[in-house]
């Protein structure tokens, strides 16, 4: 099925990077949950990591051109699913983002992001000129906007925003006329206050307020931010050691095994651990950028870049959130946070990136 040269082109370094970061994530999940009410979380995460790696391998086997040929089916199926969720969606955690399957639940939003990347890649690859025309911009923007709005209605603003960022960076890569870029900026400037006024719910506004001034409600909305900053800051150079962080072990830090897992890294492994993990993420990112640059066609570049922009945005947002730089939003840290959907989506995405890399040579 695979040619010899394709076998040789498998990017083992990236796979190693993903495995190392995920394994480190397992250690930290164990530390953050072993003393709590659910000490066995790390076992579930091991299973997901295994399934994720299998998924990554499976995706690599099928030529990405074959996959992208079916992008419409994936895209419209996803949109249909999202419409179904909005109309009939069951309630879980107060939002309609989960879908009950026989064997468990998953978030169609995670699949939607991949579907949008593949669908956009396919259409952007057909743009031959150096810059998109206005018609092309509007068409492709609507491809992203439809699922993004449906997801925003769930409401899951984080995933919707991710899709927006993914579209924005892919459109930038494709090329925008300066005038259009200026309009886009203007649109954002007008849209932000409007969405603040009409789009955001009170708890979402509260998050922004408490980001701007965590001390205004230290036991309430500002609590997570304050405790996360204390956890990070108290780590010092080398940290308090594995299983020894007081902020996480004594449950001062909220959700230490999911969204704030990096605060545990910072507390228990200090700046040394923080810098090492950030460098690993950067290494994985630069390697993928290299793949995008050396792809054999536009389609490959867009696929890799779309997946990567998703990964980089979520990573940077999560790390910035832990560092107290941006308002708290329920973004998991790809590869490390406890959670199945995020792990599978990330591995699926890197399956596509590796897929493009191993097929970078023209026959």
């Amino acid at each position, binding site marked *: 099925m695979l040619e010899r040269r394709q076998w040789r082109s498998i990017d083992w370094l990236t796979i190693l990077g993903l495995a190392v970061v995920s394994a480190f994530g397992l250690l930290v999940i164990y530390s953050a949950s072993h003393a709590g009410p659910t000490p066995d979380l790390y076992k579930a995460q091991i299973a997901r990591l295994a399934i994720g790696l299998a998924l990554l391998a499976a995706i690599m086997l099928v030529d990405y*051109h074959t996959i*992208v*040929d079916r992008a419409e089916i994936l895209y419209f199926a996803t949109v249909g699913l999202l419409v179904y969720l909005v109309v009939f969606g069951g309630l879980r955690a107060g939002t309609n983002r989960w879908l009950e399957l026989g064997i468990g639940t998953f978030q169609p939003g995670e699949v939607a992001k991949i579907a949008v990347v593949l669908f956009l890649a*396919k259409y952007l*690859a057909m743009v031959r000129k*150096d810059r998109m025309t206005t018609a092309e911009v509007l068409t492709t923007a609507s491809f992203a906007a439809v699922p993004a709005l449906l997801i925003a209605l769930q409401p899951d603003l984080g995933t919707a925003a991710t899709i927006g960022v993914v579209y924005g*960076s892919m459109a*930038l*890569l494709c*090329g925008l006329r300066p005038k259009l870029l200026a309009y886009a900026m203007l649109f954002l400037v007008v849209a932000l206050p409007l969405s603040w006024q009409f789009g955001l719910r009170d708890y979402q506004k509260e998050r922004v307020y408490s980001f701007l001034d965590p001390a205004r409600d230290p036991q309430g909305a500002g609590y997570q931010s304050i*405790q996360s*900053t*204390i*956890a*990070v*800051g*108290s*780590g*010092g*150079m080398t940290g308090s050691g594995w299983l020894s962080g*007081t*902020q996480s072990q*004594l*449950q*001062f830090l909220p959700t230490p095994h999911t969204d704030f897992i990096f605060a545990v890294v*910072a*507390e228990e492994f*200090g*700046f040394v651990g*923080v*810098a090492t993990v*950030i460098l690993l*993420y*950067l290494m994985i*990112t*630069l390697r993928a*950028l290299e793949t*995008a*640059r050396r792809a*054999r*066609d*536009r*389609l490959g*570049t867009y696929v890799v*870049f779309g997946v990567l922009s998703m990964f*980089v945005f979520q990573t*940077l947002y999560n*790390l*910035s959130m832990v*560092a*107290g*730089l941006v308002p708290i939003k329920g973004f998991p840290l790809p590869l490390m946070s406890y959670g199945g959907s995020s792990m599978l989506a990330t591995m699926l995405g890197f399956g596509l990136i590796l897929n493009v890399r191993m097929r970078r040579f*023209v026959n």
Partner: protein
Amino acid sequence: MGLNIYEDLRPLRRRLAGFRFVIIVVFGMLVLRFWQLQIARGTTYQLQARANHVRPIPESAPRGLVLDRTGRIIAENRPSFNLTLSEDRSATLEALERLVPLPEDVDRDAVLRLARLGPALVKEDIGIDDVSRVQARQLELPGAHIQFVPRRYYPMSGLSAHVVGHVGQLSEEQLEAAEFAGAEQYDYVGQAGIERIYNAALMGENGVQNIMVNSVGRREGVLEQILPVWGESVQLSIDLSLHEVAQEEFGERAGAIVALDPRNGQVLALASFPAYDPNSFSGSFDHEQWSDLMNDERHPLSNRAIQGRYAPGSVFKLVMATAALEEGIITAETEMSCSGSVRLYGNVFHCARASGHGSVDLVEAIAQSCNSYFFRLAPKLPIETIARYARLFGLGKATEIDLPHEVSGLVPDPDWKRRARNEPWYAGETVSVAVGQGAVLVTAVQMAQLAGAVSTGGEIHHPRLFLRQLPSASPPEPFPLARHVPAARRLGLRPETYRVLQEGMFQAVNGVGTAGRARVAGVAVSGKTGTSQVAARGRIAQTRDEDRPEELRNHAWFVGYAPRENPEIAIAVLVEHAIGGGGRAAAPIAKAVLERHFENRRLRERDHARKTAVAIH
């Protein structure tokens, strides 16, 4: 879709390089941000993380023991438990209220506010039932602690209340005072007596237990513990057995007794009646109890031995006799006649014996307390001279005994009168002063000191309660006042003067005198009685004491020492509003105390002899 092998990918690659640059910069900035949080501000956040999960629970230091000179315990500590809250959790406080009946005046908001800073007191000295109720539900009561607190206990109750004093919670003002440096909020510190004056040494050093709590305030373990250091222990010079006798003798009467060793100033007994139970102050004080004590008309809290100011009555004749002898107005042989009254400055002054004493010399005048003799001295001695000799004996100023709030009494002279009343001194007043009435005021401890000075032939030692510091495990904290004992001084009078005073006092007890009731078999007791007039004029002065309202009865003094040769105990007894004068009301009390003192000594010597005999065999 087909393969586009010949695409021009250069613009795409150019833009990818741009993204690459941006990504590296953003990752780099993140690393810098973590450097800022973890390295530049790391110490601050480490402190905050520690404040999150460490709760310091202070452990009170037990106060040092206070013993009497025979080793009996006056003050010790008993275990007790306080209920405290160390987290700002109203739910825990509500749960505690359902579990343990809280005092009605507990300020819930204040407790919660204080709880943010450290353990806040919810209820003091709770019973063992409450302790086990709270312990059993510890898991449902995050932030609640049972603190073990040593509580001051006085096993002898009120027997030496005015010497040992009592402890009480540190007040807001005292928290700032240098006197109580090292004491913390809720600490019990000495508020009166020995407890107050030697508080710094008795107090010890509090320890602390740093416990680790989780985010819901549940205790997770002990991080470190600094054990409290016991306070220093002290042995006092008082002999509780003398107090027991005095208490029995006084009964329901009010008054004071001071006994000291004239050779060195050691206080052998110092008591004030009525007494109070110092244990009342050691724990939670209910307000009714407090106001009862404060408003008691008999003032049990005041220490009459050092704070009660009384006219000395005839005891002052010792000062007059000294002045007259030293100034050469009379000699020991000078006789004067007493017809029962003396007419001076247009007034008639009465002697105690209406029929008169006939012709008496100075020794007889002292022994029989003849007023006429001393009335006649008054015109020959200026008040300033009398005041000088009174001050020489230590009257008119504090003795500097190691107790707080001693008063100085008053030796009147024209200066004082001009200042206090803006009036000149009248010659008639000197006549009153000559027999210890009028404006002159003394304390019992001054009287005991005066008796001691006569007995030793002029040695005046400062009275001391501190005898010695007991050995302690750690390097001892010196008792601050004990180091600064003022030096003894000598009066410097002529030997003949002392001889006359001593003879007069001996005859008062053993000859024809007023103090016969102080006689002790086998011991040569010397003494002088006095009666401090409360109602000096009018018809009431003519009635018998039994027929007067209590508050108009006179105060009775006995001042003396024993034995005559080599004196070892000087004593002053004052009975307020007594039935009968010094001879009838005060002398028997002194006799009982002196008897016990010499009985104790005899038993001690017998024990010693027996031990020595055993040692020889």
